[in-house]
């Protein structure tokens, strides 16, 4: 704690220095240069187009001109207005929620809009024809309303809001992906759109976004004073005579409107809404007024620059990498670099713990109950199922037949669930942070990037090579994340912000690769959704052995796991080798995650949920908590596996996706339930 404080103070003084040195003309020069660079890229693109011999001859000249006026110019314009709109939306959301992590994509607004549009495309295409924007707005408002309802009772506490937002976003993304997978190839274009493609045919999108931008900017300018007061805490705002709730809802609605318009017109563009206000702040824009000018400008420059780079690398034959994925590629590293330098002093504390259940008197009896439940689940999964003529209980020869098919499934599910839960428990204890988990920290997607690399570099890689690659991806991401977080003594703010950045960064790589549409793309899409359709007995055996080998050291680390949640200061005072124990535990968590992710994909939430559930039912001490988490993880994954085979019989839904759909809503509900039964 004191260590965190010390780190905070150092970071503050660093940020002060940084801000002082930038308060001069430097930010203007820097962003001016960036704008010039973007303009130069755009000019280069125009020159390239004008000098294109294909459009030199008279009949083609007109087409060339049409492309220029209806393609290239609107594209630049749409990049500028979208960037500005997202920058403004991000700034407004961060301000009213007093939450540095708030932006359209972390709050699930973009994902909600995307899900609504995917669902409408399939179920009610007519609705999409009438008003794309209306559908997107409904989805975005739905997501925002859900998050606000869930976290209202906790006073919109930043950690809960972000967690609910990320859960909503990931669940909505999982649902969209499921829809895309279930509807085959023709939905593939939706996936590319999901990545935020700025390709334009006319000025429609530009005018639509620009008008919204003007209206919201005007409204925000009118609300400047109340917005400035909202930056204080609620009590202070109220005592200054502000109708806090009305004001807040109004501003949120404005921001959602702006953000969902962008989503409807060009798709999901992450990061700009997060990065622009942060960069504005770092550039020395201290007052709200200054930030209201700076954030949209920086957003516009960022997106224009990114789009310029994309067009440059793609050449003239049309690009396949969506710009929205590329903003994350540029913005992610930027944010990771900035993270230790951001001043956190005026940010609200995120240290509040999540609800924990009453501590159990007899933890081992509880663990025994969980063991029995797991065994029951395994038995049900192996025996019960849907056949062509309804539900059946398999016995005798039929059972033997089905066993060869069902057992590997269950085995892989149980092993992966156990490993993810173990990793989640380790990370939560090491960081003393209830939100740390392989999914939230981007470790799972890091494994995906490793896998991607090997799929491209090696022809038909075996499972061993695939494992090595995804393990190194996961461990690299984890080490990077924790190195960043360690600079502030594992402050939850930085860890979360870093996790969001890292997750978005890795998903961007994956999205970009999938959007290329090659053989590897399909393999990756299947991997992301966590499909175990091809489960073979050897794989199940491998997963089981890996789980046993990697989980075996856990009991020997229980003393460390007892002390480390108390923080580095206490751990050091008690003589725990802090660095060494962190390194060992983190490496183990990385290996566990990578192994599990190889089988069930990166999104499952089991690593977050299982340790939570274990705490919730009252397993507080490391050993029972460890056993409980691992068993709950295995059980939940088996349940997901069984349900994913039963729900849409005879089709089988991807296991990882299904686990996410099962776990996400539960966790969101858990958050909304508040802290009933908590200690303080």
């Amino acid at each position, binding site marked *: 704690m*004191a260590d965190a404080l010390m780190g905070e103070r150092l970071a503050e*003084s660093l940020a002060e220095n940084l801000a002082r040195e930038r308060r001069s003309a430097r930010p203007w020069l820097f962003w001016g240069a960036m704008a010039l660079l973007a303009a130069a890229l755009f000019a280069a693109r125009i020159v390239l187009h004008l000098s294109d011999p294909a459009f030199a001859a008279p009949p083609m000249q007109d087409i060339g001109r049409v492309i220029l006026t209806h393609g290239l110019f609107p594209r630049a314009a749409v990049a500028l207005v979208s960037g500005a709109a997202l920058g403004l939306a991000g700034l407004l959301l961060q301000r009213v929620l007093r939450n540095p992590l708030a932006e359209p994509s972390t709050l699930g607004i973009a994902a909600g809009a995307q899900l609504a549009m995917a669902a409408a495309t399939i179920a009610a295409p007519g609705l999409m024809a009438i008003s794309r924007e209306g559908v997107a707005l409904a989805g975005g408002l739905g997501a925002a309303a859900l998050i606000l309802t869930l976290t209202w009772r906790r006073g919109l506490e930043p950690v809960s809001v972000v967690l609910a937002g990320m859960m909503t976003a990931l669940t909505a993304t999982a649902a969209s992906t499921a829809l895309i997978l279930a509807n085959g190839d023709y939905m593939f274009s939706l996936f590319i759109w999901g990545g935020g493609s700025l390709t334009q045919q006319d000025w429609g999108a530009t005018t639509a976004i620009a008008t919204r931008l003007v209206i919201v900017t005007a409204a925000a300018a009118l609300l400047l004073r109340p917005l400035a007061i909202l930056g204080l805490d609620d009590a202070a705002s109220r005592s200054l005579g502000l109708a806090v709730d009305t004001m807040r809802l109004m501003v949120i609605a404005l921001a959602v409107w702006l953000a969902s318009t962008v989503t409807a017109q060009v798709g999901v563009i992450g990061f700009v809404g997060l990065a622009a206000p942060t960069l504005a702040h770092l550039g020395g824009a201290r007052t709200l007024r200054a930030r209201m000018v700076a954030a949209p400008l920086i957003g516009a420059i960022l997106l224009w620059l990114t789009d310029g780079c994309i067009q440059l690398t793609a050449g003239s034959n049309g690009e396949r990498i969506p710009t929205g994925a590329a903003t994350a590629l540029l913005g992610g590293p930027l944010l990771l670099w900035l993270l230790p330098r951001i001043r956190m002093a005026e940010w609200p504390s995120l240290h509040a713990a999540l609800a924990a259940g009453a501590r159990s008197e007899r933890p081992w009896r509880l663990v025994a109950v969980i063991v029995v439940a797991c065994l029951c689940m395994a038995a049900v999964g192996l025996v019960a199922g849907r056949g062509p003529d309804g539900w059946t209980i398999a016995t005798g020869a039929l059972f033997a037949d089905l066993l060869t098919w069902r057992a590997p499934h269950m085995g892989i599910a149980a092993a992966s669930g156990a490993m993810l839960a173990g990793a989640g428990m380790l990370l939560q204890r090491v960081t003393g942070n209830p939100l740390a988990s392989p999914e939230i920290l981007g470790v799972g997607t890091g494994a995906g990037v490793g896998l991607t690399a090997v799929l491209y570099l090696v022809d038909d890689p075996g499972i061993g090579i695939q494992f090595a690659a995804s393990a190194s991806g996961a461990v690299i991401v984890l080490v990077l994340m924790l190195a960043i977080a360690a600079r502030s003594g594992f402050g939850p703010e930085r860890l979360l912000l870093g996790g969001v950045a890292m997750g978005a960064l890795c998903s961007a790589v994956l999205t970009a690769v999938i959007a290329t549409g090659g053989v590897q793309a399909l393999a990756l899409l299947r991997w992301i959704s966590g499909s175990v359709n091809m489960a073979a007995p050897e794989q199940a055996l491998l997963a089981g052995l890996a789980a046993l080998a990697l989980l075996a050291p856990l009991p020997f680390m229980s003393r460390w796991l007892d002390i480390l949640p108390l923080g580095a200061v206490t751990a050091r005072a008690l003589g725990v080798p802090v660095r060494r124990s962190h390194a060992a535990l983190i490496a183990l968590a990385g290996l566990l995650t990578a192994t599990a992710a190889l089988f069930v994909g990166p999104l499952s939430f089991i690593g977050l949920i299982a340790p939570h559930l274990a705490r919730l039912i009252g397993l507080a001490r490391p050993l029972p908590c460890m056993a409980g988490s691992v068993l709950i993880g295995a059980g939940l994954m088996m349940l997901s596996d069984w349900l994913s085979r039963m729900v849409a019989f005879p089709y089988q839904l991807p296991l990882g996706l299904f686990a996410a759909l099962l776990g996400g809503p539960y966790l969101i509900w858990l958050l909304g339930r508040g802290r009933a039964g908590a200690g303080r």
Partner: protein
Amino acid sequence: MTSRIDSADVSTVPLYELEGVGFSAGSRTILPGLTLSIAPARIHGLVGPNGSGKSTLIRMLARQLDPTGGRLCFMGQDIRSWNPGDFARSVAYMPQFTPPAEGMTVTELVALGRFPWHGALGRFTARDRLKVDEALADTGLAGFRDRLVDRLSGGERQRVWLAMMLAQDTRCLLLDEPTSALDVAHQAEMLSLVRRLSRSRGLGAVVVLHDINMAAAICDDILALRDGALMARGAPEAIMKSAVLEELYGLRMGIFPHPGTGRPIAYVE
């Protein structure tokens, strides 16, 4: 264990010796260079205005911060050359803000103090249990054994952390503002407990204190820091003079004798 010094030496070897120990963060110098020594089995109070470097100094003594200059020795050995286990068996440290111990009972938290003795894998022996029981008894927590730490009051929680330090069975206690979150009654209780334990167990202690009167009441030796330098040092009677305090706090201060005990009491004029 080899570095343990037999009891004959304990009373003569200073706990800490500092030679020009300095600390700076970036371009800001917090401690330019301190030279002093700290004797065993006595209570030393670190006092001074905000930003005088008290907390930085005690963190360096606890090995939570590395000095950026000078030489800092503990028990005659450079502090960096101590291995973590041996050091934790010799020095116990309570930070200014104790972390929340979610879901832990009093006994469990106090038992963590035995970690430096049994390590990550060693057995929790009868001796460990005995030390924990002693620590609980000495801090008056015997009736609180199975209570959850995060449900206790601030004063009780502070006593639990003190009990954990005692269970660590060290020769030196470092306390960074142990009373900052407590009301007057609990402050007095906590500090008299520290004094009593230091006397009965022969422990050396360094305590950062905000309240100069509290410091004068319990300490054997007061170290007054200002702007990272040792401005004055001595027994409470030597420090509790208006001239010294005025220079320390930059404020006119007066002294009058305690009506009951005759101890000097400082007040702002």
